[in-house]
């Protein structure tokens, strides 16, 4: 009891262990973002095609992942799918797959919105020049849609990072889970340890997400200045 809860945080292996948990959080988030954003971009592009069946399927996919809370998705994937005869993956792999599907669903909506927001006459001007559909996408639609989709995508990225805090519920040793074991191992030494530790987690996530949010705001503001209302 001779030390404060804050000092305890820096004792022994506590800090390196927290950082290792932070590493797991980062790793999962990075893999999920790489896979989810690419898959979502593809699905978003598909959603602009005039094919009814495809629309219904992709819309249904989006709505399911929108309606079911992420925690529940995690549990279903972790516990139920293997029993129903599907794949059996580690907690981290399950998290990556689940979050990727969720991220892709959200991303598909952002991308669809951006593609639809590119003025129709831009694409028509390309068509009038004799560009094929693929060339219209490659030279006109995608380059113009990317800046439109960027702020929404960055905001989605911060949500993905924040959602990794749920990993502890399926046995992944992420930042929050490591934090909990630290609390259990140390809190009898100082009653305020939990306060400082959870405070540190708070700051950790903030440092990860806030710069991304600022960047998104900056881009959105720049666009507004360019388009001048």
């Amino acid at each position, binding site marked *: 009891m001779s030390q404060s*809860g804050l000092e305890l945080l820096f004792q022994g292996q506590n800090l390196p262990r927290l950082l290792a948990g932070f590493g797991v959080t980062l790793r999962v988030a990075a893999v999920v973002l790489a896979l989810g954003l690419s898959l979502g971009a593809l699905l978003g592009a598909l959603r602009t095609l005039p094919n009814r069946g495809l629309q219904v399927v992709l819309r249904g996919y989006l709505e399911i992942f*929108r*309606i*079911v*809370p*992420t*925690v*529940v998705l995690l*549990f*279903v994937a972790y*516990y*139920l799918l293997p*029993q129903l005869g599907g794949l059996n993956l580690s907690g981290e792999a399950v998290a990556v797959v689940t979050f990727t599907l969720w991220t892709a669903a959200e991303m598909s909506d952002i991308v669809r919105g951006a593609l639809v927001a590119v003025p129709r006459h831009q694409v028509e001007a390309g068509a009038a020049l004799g560009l094929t559909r693929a060339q219209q996408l490659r030279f006109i639609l995608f380059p113009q849609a990317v800046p439109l989709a960027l702020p929404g995508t960055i905001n989605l990225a*911060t949500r993905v990072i*924040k*959602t990794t*805090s*749920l990993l502890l*519920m399926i046995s992944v040793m992420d930042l*929050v889970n490591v*934090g909990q074991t630290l*609390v259990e191992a140390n809190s009898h030494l100082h*009653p*305020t*340890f*939990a*306060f*400082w*530790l*959870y*405070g540190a*987690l*708070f700051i950790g*996530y*903030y440092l990860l*997400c*806030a710069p991304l*949010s600022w960047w998104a705001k900056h881009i959105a503001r720049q666009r*507004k200045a360019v388009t001048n*209302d």
Partner: protein
Amino acid sequence: MSWSVIQASLPAFGAAFWLTLELAALGIAGALGIGAGVSLVQYFRVPGLHQVASVYVDVARNTPLLVQLFFIYYGLPGLGLKLSAPVSGVLGLIFLGGSYMAEAFTGGYNAIPKSQLESGAALGLSPRQLARFIVLPQGLTAAVPGLAANVIFLVKETSIFTVIAIPELTNTALDLIGLYYRSNESLLMLVVAYAIILVPLSWGLTQLERKVRHVTIGA
């Protein structure tokens, strides 16, 4: 899948269902209130308060609800501040949701073309009258889709209350799994329970968006 298991756990799910609705409603109402207040403070750049509001939105939006709840429920008692689980949960939801709602409101106000404000000013309307007759009605209409998305999001976030032992839907489902090992039935009921809340809610909010647009701009 066993029907009798489902039947046996219906009462527990029923209670959890109403508790989830109640906590979500309180949290969303609070978040709307905080969000509206914060967005107005930011819109009018109220000296002093305006910077506080920006810091709040920044912090609340960029940290996970799970960590916010851990901090409130397990961390704060170390400093002598002890809040009950439901109070902590609703406070966390308001803290997080307030920032999301504020951004949605602000987005609505910013969507108003500058020419609208200038033509109002040219008629001799004071800044307060501009706010009342132009910014608020038009801005709120523009904000409705964003607000509606946040309502859905916050309902789903109540699932995280399980970590502070609030017997809402997710906590109850996990509990039944831990007690009777009927994961299939429990998770199925959980998904169904959320669908019962969210599908009609989402539909109703879409109708509301349409209605608001019709009432305010007649189209």
